[in-house]
């Protein structure tokens, strides 16, 4: 057992107790949710923190509230629980698919939505682009209160969040859009995706795209929207072949990340194909 004998794990019984422990622990303390990233730190040759605050026993972090205008998801909700909760809400097909196809069944029962969003170095997170295309916001809690920010903004600041702050919940607006999640793993299942394309569109009375959100994950180090493709899609009917052609012309804005699995250029090369699949799944 290759672990130093100076670490501790505190199981927080409440949100306030967790925030107190995180605040008092400072930079050497981190929240521990599903653990599917933290426990692999030795594989990545990264040091573990000296103290972890386990948040899995905090009831409000496991809550999923479906309201008329928003869905609120506690940060410790697992991928498996999220997929089950959203099954009957077709406007969240993109998120249901992301949560139910990532990794493998056992991991989906452990990995949390909050961990997926807060893990800075995990580029292949399925739920991040799904939530980006749904215009999600996040709420961050600390001893001093709560602050709400857009997910895009959160992704730029998450690596520099001050100690003592905890992603508490995700707020997703309900806009009745058609949504879809397209991913390309190297194997059929149980693998990290090479690239992810998530799409949310609303259509006007004649079937033309009125609004579009396209988010791309796993290609670059951080998932982001593909705004030029969004603008191109607006005003046109859903057409998979045409959209793929448009995507091919716009894909040069991405710089793919190299990894042992695939070279960066390949991640970019497959994007038009994923756009084609995504649009086709929406019924072009």
């Amino acid at each position: 057992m290759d672990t130093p004998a100076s670490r501790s794990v505190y199981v927080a019984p409440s949100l306030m107790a967790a925030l107190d422990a995180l605040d008092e622990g400072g930079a050497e303390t981190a929240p521990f949710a599903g653990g599917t990233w933290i426990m692999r730190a030795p594989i990545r040759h990264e040091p573990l923190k000296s103290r972890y605050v386990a948040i899995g026993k905090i009831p409000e972090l496991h809550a999923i509230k479906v309201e008329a205008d928003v869905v609120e998801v506690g940060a410790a909700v697992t991928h498996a629980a999220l997929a089950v909760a959203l099954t009957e809400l077709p406007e969240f097909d993109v998120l249901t698919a992301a949560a139910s196809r990532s990794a493998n069944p056992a991991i989906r029962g452990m990995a949390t939505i909050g961990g997926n969003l807060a893990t800075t170095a995990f580029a292949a997170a399925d739920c991040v682009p799904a939530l980006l295309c749904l215009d999600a916001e996040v709420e961050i809690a600390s001893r001093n209160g709560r602050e709400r920010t857009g997910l895009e903004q959160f992704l730029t600041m998450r690596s520099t969040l001050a100690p003592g702050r905890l992603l508490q919940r995700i707020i997703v607006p309900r806009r009745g859009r058609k949504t879809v999640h397209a991913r390309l793993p190297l194997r059929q299942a149980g693998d990290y995706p090479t690239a992810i394309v998530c799409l949310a569109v609303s259509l006007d009375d004649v079937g033309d795209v009125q609004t579009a959100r396209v988010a791309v994950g796993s290609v670059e180090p951080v998932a982001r929207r593909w705004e030029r493709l969004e603008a191109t899609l607006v005003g046109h009917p859903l057409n998979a072949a045409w959209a793929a052609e448009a995507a091919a012309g716009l894909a040069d804005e991405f710089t793919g990340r190299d990894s042992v699995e695939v070279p960066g250029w390949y991640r970019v090369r497959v994007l038009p194909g994923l756009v084609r699949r995504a649009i086709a799944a929406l019924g072009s």
Partner: protein
Amino acid sequence: MGLSLTVNGDHLTSTADPITPLVDVLREEFYLTGAKPVCREGFCGACMVLVNGNPTPSCLVPVALAQGHDICTVEGLAANGGLNPMQAALEACDAVQCGMCFPGMVVSLTHLLATRPEATRDDIRAALTGNICRCTGYERIIEAALLALATK
């Protein structure tokens, strides 16, 4: 102060560091060597155990957070020395392989048999997504699972 664990119905105490992966405590303190630490990333399934009845890669569970839960390893699946129906089907179908991945396969399939009696071939394949076999002997394992489901 030690960590209190319930493993295969036995109440055991570990003196390991709290963040130590459960698989290491099972093997090195309790000598339950069925679970194998292979990838240590939750991908291969060789360390799969049941935690409160759910298949869980024990490489990703810190031993401190295993306290208060019922842990069942492959050694605990054969009650009173008799094979459970899934194990018996695997033996009957000559599906038993080298032993690296196999304990994890047995754990995952035992859970499937208990929770999804109507499971199809595709359901079995999906349930084994997190169990990787380097012998690539999946088909006989799936046939054994179908047999176990059919005779349940």
